[in-house]
């Protein structure tokens, strides 16, 4: 619970002077993601740079140090009847907001409530020159300068050390209810998307083990009226189900095969690949656990209008992200140089060439 930004800045400057590299770490709960950390880089631990700086429930805005845990943030918001609507996965009590944004992680509500990147209003970050810079702000509309804050989403710390993050927060829904019914994988894509195209308070849509789960959230009367109109049984202990999905604690996520994440067009047909599937985000996010090779998975992701990445397990020394075309790779290399000219931060964590 302290402001350690000055110390972090000093560490960055000494690394720069010494020509060494830094691996940025806070809770360490997402170390399984991305490519393996460079063993020659030293650890820059920012977990103690934590604490809530500013929170005005009526403004719907929260500003925290990047090392603040999701646990602390959510407890604070809950006291005011608010929450992080993007439902970030908690891979442990030590998961932080900085890591969540760097990895661009959001949970089941994402297609309706937006992602962590959507809720970011501003960041402070220390770039590779050791400059402590502020982008965006604490207001919902801000178009002055480039959107450097949201650029950090998915960059996995390759552009700088985030020190402060401002987020939009939202009131918790008054009521919530989940409908479940049996359905085959080849029917569920159309079913979920057809429901999502109705003006009803849908807040999550997922398919797992031959069942489709639709969560309704909002005003009590609206949730109950929709539940009467749609088919399906009301799921008991629905909160547990969504929590396990959100935090990837469900048995599906414990399989021994590599876990791949597809971010694709929501209506793309399921591919004929052997292995286990979990379909979330009404089809826009699909998890695959199996032994298919990356070229084949990439080929399908392209056909489905999206991308694939190796989320957990498998070979962490190869490329784990979707192949980047030459022009995009060039742009990302030049952006990396623009923020971190000496390549200090998280070398090779996102791509082997960055």
């Amino acid at each position, binding site marked *: 619970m302290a402001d350690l930004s000055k110390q972090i800045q000093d560490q960055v400057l000494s690394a720069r002077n010494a020509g060494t590299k830094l691996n940025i770490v806070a809770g360490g709960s997402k170390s399984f993601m991305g490519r393996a950390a460079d063993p020659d880089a030293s650890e820059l631990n920012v977990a103690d740079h934590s604490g809530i700086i500013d929170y*005005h429930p*009526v*403004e*719907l805005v929260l500003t925290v140090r990047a090392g603040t845990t999701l646990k602390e943030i959510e407890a604070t918001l809950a006291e005011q009847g608010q929450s992080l609507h993007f439902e970030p996965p908690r891979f442990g009590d030590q998961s932080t907001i900085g890591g969540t944004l760097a990895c*661009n992680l959001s949970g089941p509500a*994402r*297609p309706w409530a*937006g*992602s962590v*990147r*959507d809720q970011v209003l501003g960041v402070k970050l220390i*770039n590779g020159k050791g400059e402590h*810079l*502020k982008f965006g*702000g*604490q*207001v*919902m*509309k*801000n*178009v*002055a*300068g*480039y*959107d*450097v*804050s*949201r*650029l950090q*989403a*998915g*960059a996995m710390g390759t552009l700088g050390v985030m020190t402060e993050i401002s987020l939009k927060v939202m009131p918790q829904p008054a009521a919530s209810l989940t409908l479940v019914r049996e359905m085959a994988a080849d029917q569920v894509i159309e079913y979920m998307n*057809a429901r999502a*195209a*109705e*003006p009803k*308070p849908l807040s999550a849509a997922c398919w797992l083990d031959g069942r489709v789960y639709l969560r309704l959230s*909002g*005003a*009590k*009367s609206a949730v*109950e009226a929709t539940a009467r109109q749609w088919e399906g049984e009301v799921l008991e202990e629905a909160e547990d189900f969504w929590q396990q999905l959100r935090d990837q604690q469900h048995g599906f996520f414990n399989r021994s095969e590599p876990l791949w994440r*597809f*971010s694709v*067009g*929501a*209506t793309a047909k399921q591919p004929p690949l052997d292995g286990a599937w979990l379909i979330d985000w009404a089809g*826009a996010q699909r998890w695959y656990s199996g032994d298919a090779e990356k070229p084949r998975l990439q080929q399908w992701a392209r056909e*489905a209008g*999206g*991308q694939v990445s190796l989320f957990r397990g498998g070979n962490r020394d190869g490329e784990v*992200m979707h192949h*980047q075309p030459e*022009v995009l790779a060039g*742009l*990302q290399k*030049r*952006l990396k140089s*623009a*923020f971190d000219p000496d390549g200090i931060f998280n070398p090779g964590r996102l791509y082997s060439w960055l």
Partner: protein
Amino acid sequence: MSEKPTISKAELAELFRGFIDPAFVIDDAETMKPYECDGMSMYCEMPLLVVLPETVSQVQDVMRTCARHKVPVVARGAGTGLSAGAMPHAEGIVLSLAKFNRILSIDPLARSARLQPGVRNLAISEAADRFGLYYGPDPSSQIACTIGGNVAENSGGVHCLKYGLTVHNLLSVELVTVDGELVTIGSDGLDCCGMDLMALMTGSEGLLGIVTEVQVKLLPKPEIAQVVMAGFDNVQQAGDAVGGIIAHGIIPGGLEMMDGHAIVAADDFAKAGYPRDAKALLLCEVDGTEEEVHEHIEQAEALFRKLGATSVRTSQSEEERALLWKGRKSAFPAVGRISPDYYCMDGTIPRSQLAHVLTEMEKMSEEFGLRVANVFHAGDGNLHPLILFDANVPGEFERTEAFGSKILELCVAVGGCITGEHGVGVEKIRQMAIQFNDDELAQFRDVKAAFDPDGILNPGKGVPTLRFCQEYRSLEHKQHDIHSNADSTHG
């Protein structure tokens, strides 16, 4: 900044006529005249040439030609922008995307649409209507403004609190880079691997590339929408009522405020039946399912009464809802009727600072001898002060600009920003140095160089040069000294 072009106007026109229909390579002053400014007509410049390509490969060739000869390129959609972001460059071309005006496809099941950049914002919702869908962001200029311009400015509208800005409603863009390469950023999915380049492109004001296709998300049309209008005796109470609604857990589809000057002007214009003696007016629209709207409207009415509203009226029909909105939506032209000219500002502030900012603004209004009316996107803190002036009175526009600048400084001082949705363009380039320090501005310039090393895309907009900032700060410093001296004399 770009270097001098290495080619003459005649040679350049000749090159363009080699691959673009010669009728759409415009080089005479008379035909180029309409392109000399955008919606911010106080800033004008005549370009070297205007070109209107019809295919993406022509756009690529335009960029290759301009990159080779270091010719500045200013992309232009409908030209409705309010920060002179599409003002031409004297040594460069205007690249109009007006011919790219087709809706390429709408996918009702996936709830998305593929659009050419010149498609008008409102045309998207009109085309999606038969599927029960619409496009969320609705800037006031939505009848005319184009989706390409919306991407460039990250446009907002009155529904941002609940439905987000342009950046929240895009899936992908097809982009022509400065050297003519064609690349897709984003995908049909909701996110991509690696740095979020979609976010970086959105709101980049034509400084990073030329957008030639846009894929947007569509939303299901709410079953019903109703608006509650509440009048208040003072701005503080109205501001507190906005906080009260949100603290209650209601996120309205739209939440707008007007001050006393704007209420009277808008009511004269639209005959909307506004409470003309009120000092502040709230329009709170709730949308969703019938059950939800019914529940929330009752709660909102009760809350407004409890929080001191002097009048509360709820729309009972679509016609009445449209009428109540008509006043707000015509607030700008309405104010235009009570003054020869008006200058629209676009700061954003934390909502809690509203009363303070309006009080300070009243003081400044007296100081500068200029009237100001306020309309406010209360839900998201975006303030649009309209400064009333007469451009025919010598020196009055300069005074207006100085007043506007002070308002933006105040917005930054209370924790807000200099532009919520209109963009920086040329108009607010000086105030960039208030919101950002030299290191931050240098970082922006480095981002720009990663996309456009020779600086030919929309030069002179968005991000000020280092020299520009230093001169501005030193000028501000001197003015501050003069003010301080004057204050001490008064004291």
